């Protein structure tokens, strides 16, 4: 399955699609990136006259690249344009270290802890363009056909 096919199978669209590119993907690991646009809708409110990317959005970026893309890859033999995956976030524990501003490009690196009985748990890290660790943690979700 190509990287473009994986992105096309994602069940999101703007303004809530947070995957631009997948650099590398295998059974155990995925790396991808997203560039925050200058005019993302959430910057209007977070914060007043001081746009900073909300932690929940960073978590969402980590989940979309680190969990959903990897989950689609793991189910690749059963998926098609007619058969799309059903997904649900079930838990996350994230620590945040640095802020992310508009127009920054962030890279997500996710390693699979396990994928059993439709539950995918990953250890996920998000880096900025200076390759500094912005946030890291564990995210789990259910993914099935």
């Amino acid at each position, binding site marked *: 399955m190509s990287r473009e096919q994986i992105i096309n199978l994602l069940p999101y669209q703007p303004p809530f699609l947070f995957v631009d590119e997948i650099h590398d993907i295998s059974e155990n690991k995925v790396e991808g990136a997203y560039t925050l646009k200058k005019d993302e809708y959430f910057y209007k409110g977070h914060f007043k006259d001081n746009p900073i990317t909300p932690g929940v959005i960073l978590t969402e970026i980590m989940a979309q690249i680190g969990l959903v893309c990897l989950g689609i890859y793991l189910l690749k033999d059963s998926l098609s344009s007619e058969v799309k995956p059903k997904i*649900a976030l*079930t*838990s996350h524990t994230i620590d945040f270290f640095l802020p992310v501003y508009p127009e920054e490009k962030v890279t997500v690196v996710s390693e699979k802890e*396990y994928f*059993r*009985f*439709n*539950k995918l748990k990953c250890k996920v890290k998000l880096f900025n363009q200076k390759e500094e660790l912005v946030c890291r943690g564990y995210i*789990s*979700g*259910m993914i099935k056909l």
Partner: protein
Amino acid sequence: MTKDELLVTLKNIVKPYIQDEEAFINLTENTDFINDLKINSANLVDVVLDVEDEFDIEIDNDAMEKMLSVKAAIDIITTKLNEK
């Protein structure tokens, strides 16, 4: 391991994942993980993974699908332990 010991071990395993405290206090063999204890499907997977570690057994997909109550769990664990 006696059935009572097994029940105590199982109770410790499910404890972090339950939502209904009262059902947990009154737990019996007939307690259902989802309907009584209100464990969600993702945490039910954690229960199964913890059962595997605790008893050093492997739960397959068929057993996982059946493991919805205390009684079913005890039956499955006992069977797997006897197979060892």
